[in-house]
């Protein structure tokens, strides 16, 4: 199209000068916040109990490695559901307390905020588990990877069940159900160690790995479903 015609078209489609533009743009203008700075900022909003519980369990495990010795890996796998509980509770706080609609209208989207907080908590948990697993696994003379799988599975199972509870119940009662799930998974870890010892044999390890992969995919899917469900409610 000729430049002249474009100019005439621009004039033909001209609209009267907007009146409220400056105020609006001042209100919404977002500065370039780097991902690292954003995550760092969100750390301040994570409840203190999350850090306290995570570190407390970590200290408990380290202490047990000294006193309990080779059984400490099973203590870790029994305690890990409570660490997962902290992450679920924090990530679904808005949904559980009915604040998600309000928080969706804030400067940064709810999705970004949740992701940032989970990243911060995830990094802490990865660090703690990264220390707990080799320490506790070493006492049981298990390879690190095998110890890791035995510990991560209860973590993921608690997370999946907790997220399912939050999505189905969608209110503050889901917190109690999540706690129940953590207790249940913890007891299951203890029970299987006591009565189903054979499942920890090396020949069944491949099934443990498959289950971990399956649960990891489920965790991601459940989180996505919760986010979409939250947006759906807000739009309606």
């Amino acid at each position, binding site marked *: 199209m000729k430049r*002249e015609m474009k100019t*005439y078209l*621009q*004039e033909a*489609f*001209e609209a009267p000068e*907007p009146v409220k533009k400056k105020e609006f*743009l001042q209100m919404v203008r977002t500065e370039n916040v780097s991902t690292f700075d954003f995550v760092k900022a969100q750390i301040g909003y994570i409840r203190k109990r999350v850090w306290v519980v995570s570190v407390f369990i970590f200290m408990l495990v380290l202490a047990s490695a000294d006193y309990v010795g080779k059984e400490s890996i099973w203590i870790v796998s029994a305690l890990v559901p409570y660490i997962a509980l902290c992450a679920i509770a924090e990530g679904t706080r808005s949904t559980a307390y009915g604040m998600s609609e309000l928080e*969706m209208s804030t400067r940064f*989207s709810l999705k970004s905020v949740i992701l940032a907080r989970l990243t911060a908590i995830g990094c802490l948990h990865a660090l703690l588990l990264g220390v707990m697993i080799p320490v506790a696994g070493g006492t049981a003379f298990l390879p690190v990877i095998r110890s890791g799988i035995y510990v991560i599975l209860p973590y993921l199972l608690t997370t999946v069940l907790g997220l399912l509870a939050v999505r189905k119940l969608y209110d503050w009662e889901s917190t109690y159900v999540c706690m129940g799930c953590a207790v249940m998974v913890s007891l299951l870890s203890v029970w299987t160690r006591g009565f189903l010892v054979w499942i920890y044999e090396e020949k069944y390890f491949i099934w443990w790995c498959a289950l971990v992969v399956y649960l990891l995919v489920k965790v991601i899917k459940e989180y996505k479903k919760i986010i979409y469900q939250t947006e759906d409610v807000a739009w309606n």
Partner: protein
Amino acid sequence: MGKTDLEEQYDKIYRYCYFKVHQREAAEDITQETFLRFYERFGHYGNDFTLQYLYRIAHNLCVDRFRKKEETELSEEIALEGHEEQVLSKIFLKEALSLLSEEEKELLLLRYVNEVPIAAMCKLYGISRFALYRKLKNATGRLQSILGEEGAL
């Protein structure tokens, strides 16, 4: 100081909304609502990839507006004293545009005035590049033939 990217997009969305609803206040409200809903979903204004969502939100809000309001006032804001020739050309072009369909007018606005990239337009309309180019060609062809008949420009 030049316009920022955000400010530029605001103007373009506002122009699009004004084209749809023909009222300054309504167009401003819809523009602001569009950006707020866009930020809710994406958290920040992005790039061409997210541009079609901006227009889609604006389009849907304009349609909702039409459903609520029964009458829409047509405001013609032309008169420029001392520039009669330009004013006449504007009138001819506006008349020619009024003979086009809504879809053709919208295509011309988005492509040649708001300079929306072809890829974003394809995603917005859900059509292929070939189909879009064909529609644009038809729209500009019709406009030029109408202007040619009126002996303007």
